[in-house]
């Protein structure tokens, strides 16, 4: 099948192909060079970095890594990041599939209003709700607790997730749901047996979006938590980087520590996107 499409590749004009290669090549360099630069910079001492910003380090040293790790207590931060990322992503996917299914396939006069309110949520910026959110979390006694971080993370991920899930589930033919109803299946049965398996592609998309989002989130966690035992990696990284920060060596090491897990996660998960997406395609 795929071979047949390849046969007439020739009518993709050679000039066009070169243009595409050039653009893609530029993107590739733009992505790989900064990563390379970050990696070699983390092997320089602060002093060396300031004197030699782009070259290969003269005395490469890994000293920055243990030093940054210890100073910012990265072991704790790491586990916290994992916890918040996994739990909030799982919750967002489940809740948005549920709501998306209801919005897409169960008729209700509330859908317009409720779904609309989520769509507006896509447009809200974190900065604008930061202070009121802090006041609320504080007044209900959830300040500086895990749950007090998780709920806002889930709430903030929901608008986009629900929008995507609703759109996706809408594309499942109504007849699938209707025939299951005629066969006597309950809505929950349809949800768990039909919708969830079919929703794998959208679930994976959501996972990628949210994992990257929560893993890198720094503003909210900083506001909602005061004890180091609950903080996440970005807060630790931010301790090393800022316009006044002078310790470049440890700063770059900290940036690498924060970035590597994400890149590894993505490289592993990447295959799944293609699989998940093509699984969806068979039915579409």
């Amino acid at each position, binding site marked *: 099948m795929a071979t047949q499409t390849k046969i007439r590749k020739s009518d993709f004009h050679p000039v066009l192909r070169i243009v595409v290669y050039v653009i893609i090549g530029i993107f590739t360099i733009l992505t790989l060079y900064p990563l390379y630069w970050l990696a070699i910079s983390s092997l320089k001492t*602060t*002093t060396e970095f300031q004197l030699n910003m782009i070259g290969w380090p003269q005395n490469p040293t890994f000293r920055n890594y243990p030093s940054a790790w210890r100073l910012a207590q990265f072991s704790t931060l790491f586990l916290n990041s994992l916890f918040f990322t996994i739990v909030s992503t799982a919750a967002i996917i489940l809740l948005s599939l549920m709501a998306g299914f209801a919005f897409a396939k169960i008729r209700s006069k509330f859908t317009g209003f409720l779904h609309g309110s989520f769509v507006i949520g896509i447009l809200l910026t974190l900065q604008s709700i930061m202070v009121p959110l*802090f006041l609320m979390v504080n007044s209900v006694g959830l300040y500086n607790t895990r749950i007090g971080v998780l709920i806002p993370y889930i709430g903030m991920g929901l608008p986009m997730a629900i929008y995507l899930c609703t759109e996706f589930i809408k594309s499942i033919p109504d007849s699938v749901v209707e025939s299951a109803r005629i066969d006597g299946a309950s809505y929950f049965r349809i949800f768990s047996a039909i919708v969830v398996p079919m929703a794998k592609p959208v679930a994976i998309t959501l996972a990628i979006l949210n994992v990257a989002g929560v893993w890198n989130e720094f503003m909210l966690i*900083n506001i909602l938590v005061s004890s180091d035992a609950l903080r996440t990696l970005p807060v630790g990284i*931010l*301790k090393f980087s*800022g316009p006044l920060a*002078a310790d470049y060596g440890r700063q770059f090491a900290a940036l690498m520590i924060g970035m590597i897990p994400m890149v590894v996660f993505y490289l592993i998960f990447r295959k799944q996107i293609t699989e998940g997406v093509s699984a969806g395609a068979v039915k579409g």
Partner: protein
Amino acid sequence: MFKRSTVFLLTLLLIASVFVPATFAQERVTITVLNYFDLTSPGAERELQEVWHEFSNRFPHITVLREDLFLEPFHQKTEAYAAANQLPDVIYMWPGGRSTTLHTKRLVKDLRPLLGEDAKYFSEAVLAPQTAGYLAELPNTMTSSHALYVNVGLLQELGLEIPETYEDLVAMVPVLKANGLDTILMGAQDDWVIQSCLFSTIVGRLVGDKKMDEIIAGEAKFTDSEFVGALEFYGRLFADGVLHRKIMNTTYGEVNGLFAAGRAPFMIDGDWKVGNFITDTSTGEALIPVDKQDEFKMIIFPAIPGEINPNSASTVVGTGYGMSANIPAGSAKEAAAWELIKWLQSVEVQKLRLETGGTIPSRIDVTSDQLEPLVNERLGYYALIETGTYVLDSVLAGEVYLPINIGLQEIGLGLATPMEVAERTQEAYDAWKANQ
């Protein structure tokens, strides 16, 4: 119900604290602290050990719950706490500027009564009333927000001398340019830098604190010839090639390495920048190695034509820790919080800060014999300042100094004239005044 029981408990506590202080003096007290802490500063590890752990050792009955933040996250958190009226017991503060809310809303206590007799250990100037007219934080230092750092070694190589007047400085520009060097480096991407580290000093020289007091009181205007003259002189720095527009695309951290590497013979920054050049105790490395430090000098900006305050530079008291106004007076908590604030400006701690970061002590009873040449240079630098003048962002309200901060960048980039910036600042001042 809940309220009544709380009141009851509080009363009990109060009674207990009044009647049985002796028996329960060692009762555990927990205090929360919001600390501004730069993990990247040289000596950060030592500070954790010798300041915070040491406090716990000395006062085992006081449990300190410390929250370390730095830069923007710190300010976000402070504003959030202030909005919820949930300030931690002890909080790191500036004498004005970005801590304005804490001062003017009186969210922190006046520390002067608590200080009492101990005031004699501090120099008089650092205990002066702050933004809201009282001692809201106990300052750790007296700083000059302006210093002209000179790479004397580099100047000598080029056959140049340390400039005494502004004209001397201008005369060097072509020589430096011919050698592919910049004249003065600044890390001025953030807009507070030019205002705080350079323009405040220019205002001190050409306008003077007396006139500034009149402007602040509304009796004179930013659009008066003196203030506009200061802006015009600042604009001339760019026209004369002393400053280059690219300072506005250089970050505050980036400039350190550039200066140490000799990309220009001069750098303008706060005197605190010294801390970044001396030896980092955790790696033993220094941006300017100890044996090279003799080649660097700190001077104040050379004489400006028409200046009324020669040899002046902008100075301000340093940061320190304040105490939440929510702590009941006379409580065990207050005693514990004060114990901590006092410790943070104790001889031991100030000595450590002097040795690791080159911070000049606010106490008069701190000395050390193990200082690097640049730290001694910084101590000597204060002798050069005949008059200390205002740092604008510590005497003006945020709404008023922001147009100056941005205006200074605009003048440098040729986007606004000095008069336009003065007018905009005056408008901002009028709007601010109307709201008071």
